[in-house]
């Protein structure tokens, strides 16, 4: 009896235990399942937003590149015709060459100016002035590029602009800033760099602040002074910052639109016409949305290729502490 009773109670215990274990395992699995889904639930709005407003337009844009569509009539499939026409279009070709030239000059100026000013502000100025200049140099970036360009257009007017008036005070004749290829390219670059160097400047300020003072002290002990310290200490240790700043500056510069559009409308001729301007003109002025998408796809591929090349090269030139 007792054995049977013991056996029964053991069996009951086992059953109960098994029940509990099963019940416990089920609860834990549900918890795990919930834990697995919870992050997705939180991410869902972002994913949905990115999907709807970023991914979907990208996919649609790539698909559109294979269609002819004027937004009035129904789109018609044209295969690679848009790409073929775009490649043969001299205006598109010139605009890409202009964009690359612009990137080379503007990014070099932007980074050079930002780095020079960052070193000057960080090293030469008292703390209270540093705060002022950090804000002052960043300020143009928060202004509307279109508003700045309209204002600059007045400043650089050949007949009545302030810039030529100032030049006339020192005997320099009026410069046709916005009506000659060289003048207009110079103004577009100048305005763009003035407005955008502030971001690179802030990145460099951050980078400079992260360089340990001991490194400079060690360099001084080794006999390095003045610019040699910057060449042999600052620049190598800033290389990660420089990589980030240059990647961002190049991607931004490849998409330049506001300044040339407002200042020169791409002229004179095609002197300041850029790739994004041609996308805008194709889509919203000529209603060739397929061709505009094709140019957009090509520009995206170029941006991706340049960025990839930068990261590949960074393995050689970027020094991480």
């Amino acid at each position, binding site marked *: 009896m007792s054995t049977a009773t013991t056996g029964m109670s053991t069996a009951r215990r086992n059953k109960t235990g098994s029940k509990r274990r099963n019940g416990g395992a089920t609860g834990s699995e549900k918890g795990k399942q919930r834990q697995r889904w919870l992050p997705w639930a939180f991410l869902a709005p972002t994913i949905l937003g990115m999907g709807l407003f970023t991914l979907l337009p990208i996919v649609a844009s790539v698909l559109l590149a294979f269609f*002819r569509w*004027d*937004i*009035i009539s129904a789109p018609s499939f044209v295969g690679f015709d848009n790409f073929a026409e775009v490649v043969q*279009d*001299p*205006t598109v070709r010139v605009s890409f060459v202009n964009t690359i030239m612009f990137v080379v000059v503007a990014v070099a100026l932007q980074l050079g100016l930002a780095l020079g000013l960052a070193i000057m502000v960080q090293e030469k100025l008292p703390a209270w002035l540093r705060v002022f200049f950090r804000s002052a140099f960043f300020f143009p970036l928060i202004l509307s590029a279109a508003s700045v360009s309209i204002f600059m*257009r*007045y400043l650089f*007017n*050949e*007949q*009545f602009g302030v810039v030529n008036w100032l030049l006339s005070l020192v005997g320099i004749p009026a410069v*046709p800033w*916005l*009506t*000659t*290829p060289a003048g207009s390219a110079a103004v577009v670059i100048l305005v763009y760099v003035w407005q955008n160097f502030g971001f690179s400047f802030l990145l460099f300020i951050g980078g400079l602040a992260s360089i340990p003072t001991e490194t400079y002290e060690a360099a001084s002990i080794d006999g390095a002074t003045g610019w040699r310290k910057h060449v042999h200490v600052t620049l190598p240790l800033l290389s990660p910052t420089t990589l980030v700043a240059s990647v961002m500056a190049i991607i931004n510069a490849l998409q330049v639109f506001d300044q040339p559009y407002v200042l*020169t*409308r*791409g*002229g*004179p*001729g*095609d002197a300041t*016409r850029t790739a994004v301007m041609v996308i805008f*003109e194709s889509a*919203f*002025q*000529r*209603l*060739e949305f397929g061709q505009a998408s094709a140019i957009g796809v090509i520009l995206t591929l170029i941006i991706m290729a340049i960025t990839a090349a930068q990261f590949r090269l960074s393995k050689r030139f970027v020094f991480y502490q």
Partner: protein
Amino acid sequence: MAGSNGTLREISRRTALGALGAGIVGATVASWPRLSGIDIPGRGDNSLSIAILGTAADAAARQRVIDAFTKVHPEIKVKVQAIQAADWKDFFTKILTMVAAGTPPDVVYVATEGAQLFAEKLAHPLDDYLRRDAADMKEYFADVHPSLVEAFMYKGSLFQLPIDWNAANIYYNTSALQQAGLERPADNWTQVDFRNTLAAMRKARPQDFTPYYWTNRLFGGVVPWLYANGTSFLKESKSTGGEWLWDTFYGQDPSRGLRSGGYQWLESNADDPLVYESFDYLRGLVKDGLGVRPEEGGGNSLVGLFASNRIGMTPAGGYWVEGLHTAGMKEDGFDVQFFPRWRTQRHQFGTAGYAIMKTAKDKDAAWEWLKFASSLEAMRLVFPTPNTTPARRSMVNEQLYAGRGPKHWKVFYDTLDKFPTTGPIPAPPQQAAVETALMKNVSLAVSGDENQLKQALASMQRDLEIALRRQA
């Protein structure tokens, strides 16, 4: 109890989450129609929606016309939608975007620049309405010059009724002219007289003064010079048709024989020697410091500069008068004259009027709006000041220009009467591409040497050929 409580709590949480999710989905589905443009005020209530280029203030300024229209047609609700845009090209782009979004307006105020684009793709011809209401419309056409009407003919049909217009006349600063020791130019002055006038102005005021300021635009840029020289950058032809309209409304007009089924611009003409000659003339003005290198799309600061006596002459239309008055220029501080004569004295003009969209919900209501908007009553309400030239001859009178000038305001409408071949801005359905092709080459053409001019015109010819090949 504890167990049952736990179960209840678990079910309750699930239920709550489920209900929340279902609620979000349900609300989204239920409110989905509200996410469409139909729910923008005025769109879903069967109002006649009218799109104009301008600001909310411009829309408000039309309220008196809407009120007057509503008195006549209480059954038609009207909403005016002002669309801000940098220029007409930008405005048309925005209208096309509305069309693509499935929320097109019923009626659009369209200028010459877009007349053929709309006629080709978007607008509904007015022919049947005009035939039906010919008796009502005779008074309107009797008051409007046929050149303006012809600008809205396309392939034999009329698509718009001209409401306002402007020709490229020459505005001159009277004090600059006096300082140069010159009298008002003659009506038939030539391009040589024009240049001599500029040279005299320059001599009298060598500093801080520009004798001839012009901008690189489709209206008032290089085109008036091309027209005056008997050419254009596009080959101009006319289509057949429309006889019924001319016979019905302009049978007795002396220029009846000139009228057609509408303008056509099918080929590029930048390689015409007369085009070269015209550009070379302008290049000479720039080279000799008599005229500016034109900035593309410039002109925003022009009123201020002219009103401050720093510009001698500039091409502009009647729309400038109110601007100069507002800028403080006295009525005798400026005056207007016809564009100089070259091989011809053909002028360039632009006009604007309402077009009924093919997609309009109620075309009959839209036509009633067009008819009313072209009436003397409505146009008097819309144009109390000379910020444009009304299409009706009877409104271009001393009263309109009183206290504002110019002294020779009659020049505005006389341009059409004295030079009946005066033509519209060349704007085929591919206008945006054509305009870009023209404007991008003008600055280079007039800024360098002869070689640069030849290269710029060759480039213009090529760009125009590409532009005209494109679908509208």
